[in-house]
């Protein structure tokens, strides 16, 4: 067992393909992987990680302790606080779990040290989306702060992002997904096909978008373009005129009473939907699942314009060195080695290293979550509750269908100073 995994480190590609089934069979859930050096057991090391509750899961810390002997202290905050803490208190964490759009602002402050790709065991397993911006060789690169645009730097001490792949990775992508409109099929009462549908007067007072400026503006951009009001040169980097047009449109919609509320946390989006306050809103796939798990009909509705996507990753704090830095690399290699990937996939997010995650998922799970096939048996959440019954098909279809139709990423724009000012006007109006 140990040898096998060690070898996979050297010639992963072949071995993973042939030996995947065997490894998966033996390793799933058993915690049997001991392929990582166990030096940490003798030399106790603690890594402090913070980020949103989306990925700062206790199960991961537990499994990490079991497999590596590294104690992972996880602190969950909201995405705002995560960004602030990353920048203002670099000593308070070892691993930062933040989103790519904010990385564009966090990285230049020098609090995150780039990783040497040569030390990343599973670098070539990471989906190309994070390296070239293309999921498949013929995909179109989406607009906005796409992860690959902030994924690399030229040198270890460089503060500027590189244009293409280099030897230095700013963050290892861990979790990402594509957002779209979530609907209550029982209350909407018609086909929803486009982002523009959220502005339908029929849903007046029953809609919602995100209340985080960098993300909400992208929701608005998708809506604006779908309604044919404007064509942006680059949604993810609007000019001041484009920002003006978008915000003016939002202000008008708000004053007409189109929105019921704006949501900021995962929880709010779930409650808005579950309580029937809102029937159509911009939403995450796992939030839709959470509504559905309460026995309430809710659909993650694919739209013709495509998705608004987001991604997060793990970055190494600048102060890490010596044994701690080694442990951090060890942890990141473990993170991408499959167990975590499988765990995240099973929650409805996507893992960045899909091939390794596959080994830790049953064929049925892989088929349902990733390939968009009908479930053969019951699909269970990591805690054992039944999420979907046999025969269910995931909304939005397969991984390729979803992530292949990303229209834009959450963004930090060059004009973000102006954008926030106008966003405040929108909220104040």
């Amino acid at each position, binding site marked *: 067992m140990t040898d096998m995994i060690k070898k996979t480190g050297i010639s992963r590609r072949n071995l993973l393909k042939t030996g995947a089934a065997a490894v998966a069979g033996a390793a799933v859930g058993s915690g049997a992987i001991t392929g990582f050096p166990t030096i940490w057991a003798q030399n106790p090391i603690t890594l402090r990680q913070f980020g949103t509750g989306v990925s700062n899961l206790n199960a991961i810390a537990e499994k990490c302790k079991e497999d590596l002997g590294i104690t992972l202290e996880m602190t969950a905050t909201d995405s*705002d606080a995560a*960004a*602030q803490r990353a*920048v203002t208190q670099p000593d308070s964490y070892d691993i930062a779990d933040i989103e790519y759009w*904010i990385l*564009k*602002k*966090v990285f*230049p*402050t020098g609090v995150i040290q780039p990783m040497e790709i040569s030390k990343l065991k599973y670098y070539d397993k990471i989906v190309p989306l994070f390296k070239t911006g293309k999921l498949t060789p013929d995909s179109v690169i989406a607009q906005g702060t796409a992860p690959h645009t902030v994924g690399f730097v030229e040198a270890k001490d460089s503060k500027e992002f590189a244009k293409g792949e280099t030897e230095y990775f700013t963050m290892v992508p861990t979790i990402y997904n594509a957002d779209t409109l979530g609907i209550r099929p029982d209350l909407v009462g018609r086909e929803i096909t486009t982002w523009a549908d959220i502005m339908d007067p029929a849903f007046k*007072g029953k809609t*919602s978008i995100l*209340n*985080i*400026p*960098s993300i909400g503006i992208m929701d608005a951009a998708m809506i604006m373009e779908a309604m044919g009001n404007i064509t942006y040169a680059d949604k993810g980097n609007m000019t001041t005129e484009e920002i003006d047009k978008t915000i003016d449109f939002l202000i008008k919609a*708000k004053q007409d009473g189109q*929105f*019921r*509320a*704006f*949501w*900021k946390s995962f929880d*709010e989006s779930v*409650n808005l939907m579950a*309580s*029937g*306050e809102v029937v159509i809103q911009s939403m995450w796939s796992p939030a839709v699942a959470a509504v559905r798990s309460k026995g309430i009909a809710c659909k993650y509705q694919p739209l013709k314009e495509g998705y608004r996507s987001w991604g997060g990753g793990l970055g190494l704090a600048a102060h890490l060195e010596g044994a701690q830095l080694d442990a951090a690399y060890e942890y990141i290699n473990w993170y991408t080695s499959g167990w975590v990937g499988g765990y995240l996939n099973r929650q409805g997010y996507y893992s960045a290293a899909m091939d390794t995650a596959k080994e830790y998922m049953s064929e049925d799970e892989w088929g349902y979550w990733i390939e968009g096939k009908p479930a053969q048996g019951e699909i269970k959440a990591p805690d054992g509750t039944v999420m979907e019954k046999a025969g269910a098909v995931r909304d939005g279809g397969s991984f390729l269908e979803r992530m292949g139709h990303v229209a834009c990423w959450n963004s*930090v*724009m*060059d*004009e*973000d*100073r102006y954008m*926030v*000012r106008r*966003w*405040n*006007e929108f*909220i*104040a*109006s």
Partner: protein
Amino acid sequence: MNNLLSRATPYLQATPLLVILGFFLALPILLLLVVSFWDYDFAGMYPGFMTFNYAETLGSWVTWKTYGNTLKFAAIVWAITAFIGFWVAYFLAFHVRKASTQTVLFLVCTVPFLTSNIIRMISWIPVLGRNGLVNSALVGAGIVDQPVEWLLYSDFAVILAMVHLYTLFMVTPIFNTMMRIDKSLVEAARDGGASDWQIIWNVILPLAKPGIAIGSIFVVTLVMADFSTVQVMSGGQSASVALMMRNQMSLLQYPAAAANAVVLLVVVLSMVAGILRIVDIRKEL
């Protein structure tokens, strides 16, 4: 020697307060003041001396409108809490006879305040929502056909939640001052033939003024600096000054947020100075 010690006493007594506030408040405010003059763009902050952040803050209608909105909340919440606070404290202090009953009733008021603010706030949502308790009751009783929409995610919801969260801050100081009012004054007024109203108006109210002033300072400052109640209860549809700052901070635009904070500090300090001008709470110490 003794005289010297006695003169040094207030300084020694005030030192802990000064040290704590000096380090944890004055220094950070100083830092803030410095940063508010810095320049920034999407990638970082640049030390310098720019008045631009202030020009931008003060020159924008959003700022004025947001201040207007926040002041509106402050005024309404102040009026309601002062009304409730005065009568509740008056009831406890002058109508409840036994000291132990007074204490118990007062503590009954404080219990909800020991439950987390966040939980207390979100607990209004299932009460006020479209399918919440109030609407179910109203629709069920046939009073309205359609659920009342403005109960939640509205200014009404914000004010209701703020009153709920902050009333104790008014009740406590008023109750405290009222308890110190010499009962013989009230007796004397009664013997002199004063009616209940006259006693309240001419004896109790003037003597309770310092408590009302302190409670007002609490409530006004709490409302002026609030962001989470406004955010959650208005469903993000209403603005407050602190919320505006938070939006700037969320994109790491610290200089702008700092300038905003300085302006807010000046505004609220002047409001407090105004309250103190009407009632000098230190006069009778």
